[in-house]
C-alpha cells in the first residue's frame, strides 16, 4: 500500500515529536493592564463586537467579526489614532477549522502603540477593502488575494500582484506544495512552446536540488564517466577506473628524497 499523505497540508512537518513535549505559550496579558490600550479597546468595543482581546509581546491583539472590519478600522483610525496600516495579510487555517485568519497590523505614531486586528473568515467569503482608509492596503490586499485567494470588495484594482495573471492556485495555501503543483510544471512549457510541445519537452523540473542519475548532459558520476549526452541506463552503465593525473603525484618509492640532518 502507498504511504498515506495528508491532502489538507503538504507543508513540511516535524518527523519526530516527543510524546511528553508540552508546548508552552507566549506570555499574554489582559488589555486592562495597559491604560492606553484599555481606552482604545473601549472605543472599539462601543462600535463593533469584540470577540476576544489580549496583549501579546507588546502588541494588542483584538479579534472581531469579519463583517465589521471596515467599521473597526475606521474607529481605529479616527478615534484611536492608528494612522498607519503597517501590514495586512492572512493565515491559512483551512485544514484546522476551514477558516482564514486575516490580520491588520496597525501603528499609532503619537502614542507609539501597535495593535493587530484579527478576524476569521471562511473560504470563499470576501473582506471589505481598507483602501478608502489606508492606501497601503492597496498592494497588501492584492498580495493577500494573490497568495490566498481572499477577495477584497471595492478594491480599486483587484488583480494578482506577484504571480502571473493567468496563474492557477494560490501559493501560500497549505495545500499548495513548495515546488509548485502540476499546473506550475507545465506553465512555462505551454507559454513558450505551446501545449503541442508538452510531449517533446516534458514537465519542468521545479526542484532545483534534484539529481538525475542517468542524465549524462547535466550530471556526471565519479567512477561512471560517459561521454556528454551518451545514452545511459541501469543496464548499460559500466564502472570506469579512476585515473589520477600523474603531474601532482609524488612517487616516494623512487628514492630521490633525502632527509635533512638539521633545520635549514
Amino acid at each position, binding site marked *: 500500500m502507498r504511504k498515506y499523505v495528508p491532502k489538507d497540508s503538504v*507543508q*513540511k*512537518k*516535524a*518527523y*519526530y515529536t516527543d510524546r511528553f*513535549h508540552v*508546548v*508552552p*505559550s*507566549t*506570555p*499574554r496579558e489582559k488589555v486592562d493592564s495597559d491604560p492606553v490600550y484599555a481606552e482604545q479597546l473601549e472605543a472599539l468595543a462601543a462600535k463593533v463586537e469584540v470577540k476576544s482581546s489580549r496583549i*501579546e*509581546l507588546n*502588541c494588542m*491583539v483584538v479579534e472581531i467579526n469579519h463583517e465589521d472590519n471596515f467599521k473597526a478600522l475606521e474607529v481605529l483610525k479616527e478615534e484611536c489614532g492608528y*494612522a*498607519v*496600516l*503597517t*501590514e495586512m*495579510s492572512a*493565515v*491559512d487555517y483551512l485544514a484546522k477549522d476551514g477558516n482564514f485568519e486575516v*490580520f491588520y*497590523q496597525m*501603528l499609532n*505614531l503619537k502614542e*507609539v502603540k*501597535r495593535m*493587530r486586528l484579527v478576524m476569521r473568515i471562511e473560504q470563499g467569503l470576501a473582506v471589505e477593502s481598507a483602501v478608502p482608509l*489606508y*492606501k*497601503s492596503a*492597496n*498592494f*497588501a490586499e492584492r*498580495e493577500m488575494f494573490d*497568495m490566498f485567494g481572499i477577495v477584497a470588495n471595492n478594491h480599486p484594482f483587484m488583480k*494578482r*500582484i*506577484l*504571480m*502571473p495573471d493567468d496563474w492557477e492556485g494560490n*501559493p*501560500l495555501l497549505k495545500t*499548495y506544495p*513548495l515546488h509548485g503543483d502540476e499546473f506550475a510544471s507545465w506553465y512555462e512549457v505551454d507559454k513558450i512552446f505551446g501545449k503541442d510541445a508538452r510531449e517533446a519537452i516534458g514537465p519542468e523540473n521545479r526542484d532545483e536540488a534534484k539529481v538525475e542519475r542517468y542524465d549524462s548532459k547535466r550530471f556526471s558520476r565519479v567512477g561512471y564517466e560517459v561521454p556528454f549526452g551518451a545514452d545511459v541506463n541501469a543496464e548499460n552503465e559500466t564502472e570506469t577506473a579512476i585515473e589520477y593525473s600523474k603531474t601532482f603525484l609524488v612517487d616516494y618509492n623512487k628514492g630521490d628524497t633525502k632527509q635533512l640532518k638539521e633545520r635549514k
Partner: protein
Amino acid sequence: MQQPNKLSPFFENLNFERDDNTMVVNFGPQHPSAHGQLRLVLELDGEQVVKAYPDIGYLHRGIEKMAENMTYNEFLPTTDRLDYIASTSNNYAYALSVERLLGIEVPRRAQVIRTMLLELNRIISHLFFIATHALDVGAMSMFLYAFREREFAMDLMEDYCGARLTHSAVRIGGVPLDIPSDWLANMEKFCSNLEHELEHTYNALLQENRIWKMRLENVGVLSPEDALSWGCSGPMLRGSGIAYDIRKEEPYELYPELDFDVPVSDLNDSYGRYRLYMAEMTQSIRIIRQLMPMYGETEPQLMAHAPQYISAPKEEIMTQNYALMQHFVLVTQGMRPPKGEVYVPTESPKGELGFYIKSEGEPYAYRLKCRAPSFFHTGILQELLVGVYIADVVTIIGTTNIVFGEVDR
C-alpha cells in the same frame, strides 16, 4: 481598437484609435534605472505621465513559503536575499522576532557587535543609494566615489564574517563570531575616511550643485498625510516631516543607551530625502564611534544561554556529552518555540522591516510574513508618478530607494 491577426500583430505599446492620443510605454523590467526588476507601465501624454502602473513579481521566489518549510535556523540565510544591499539588517530583524518569541536575552558583547554591524550596513545601503540615485540622475562621478567607500565598508564586513553581500552575520540568540583583532582600528580608519569624504567629496559635489538641485527639488513631493496613508517608513516618512524612527521610539538592542539624532526634512521632495540619507550616514558614524569603547567593557560570551533553543558554544559541544546531544537535536529537528504570534519592527536602512511570525509550537513557522518597506514604497509610484515628466520618473524611482529582493520576496 486593434484587431490583431496573423498579418497584423498586436502592438502592446500603441493605442491607435484613442481620442486622447496617449501612448503606453513599458519601463523595465530590464532597465538600468529600474533598480532590479521593476516593470512600470506608463501611459504618456507627450512627455507627461498620465497613468502609472507598477508591475512587480519578476523576482518572486516565495520566501514566505520557504519559511514554512524550513526550521528557524535554516531560514536565516534565506533572509539575506530580501534586501540584498544590507543583508545584516534582514538577518537581524528575523533573529530579533524569533528571540522575542522565545523570550531570550542576548549577551552584551553580541549586542555591541550587532548594533555596529547594523549601522555599518546602514552606511553601505545609504552609500549604494547615493551612488545609484546620482547615476540615474546623471552624476556619474558620484557613483564611482560612493562605490569606492562602499567597497571599504564591505571589506570590513568581509573581515568580520567572510561574505561581502549575503552576510548571515547575525544568528538567533547572538552572533556567531567575535570581531577580529584589528577590526576596530580598521573601522575607526573607515569612519574618519568616510567622514572626510562625506564633507569634502559628496557634499561638495552634490549639495549645492545646481543641476542636482534642479533635478531633485520639488520632484516626488509626498505630503505627510499621503506618507502615512501609504504606509511609508524610514527616510520616506521622515522626508515628509514626520519624525518617527523606530530606533528612537521603540528602541531595541543598544539604541536606548546611544546618543544620536534623527534627521527630519519637511521639504517633502527628493532633495530633502537625499539630505536625510547624507545626515543619517553621519549619525551612523557617530553611533559606531560610541560603540567602539563599549566593546572592550563586555564579557566574551557571544550566544545566549538557552539550552532548549540554542546550541551551546563549540567548546562545550566538543567536551560535554549533554551539550552535544542537545546540539544534535537542535540541528536535526530544529528548535520548537512557544505557541503564539509576534511582530517586531526594526529600522532597516530602507524603513520599517518587521517579521510577523505565527508559531504553533512546531519546528517550522506556521506563517511568516515579511513586512518589507520597499513593497509599500513601490505602491506609492502609482500616485507619485502621475503628472510628472518622463525624465523625473527615474528620479522618483531612485528616491524611493526600493530593492527588489524585498519587494517581491
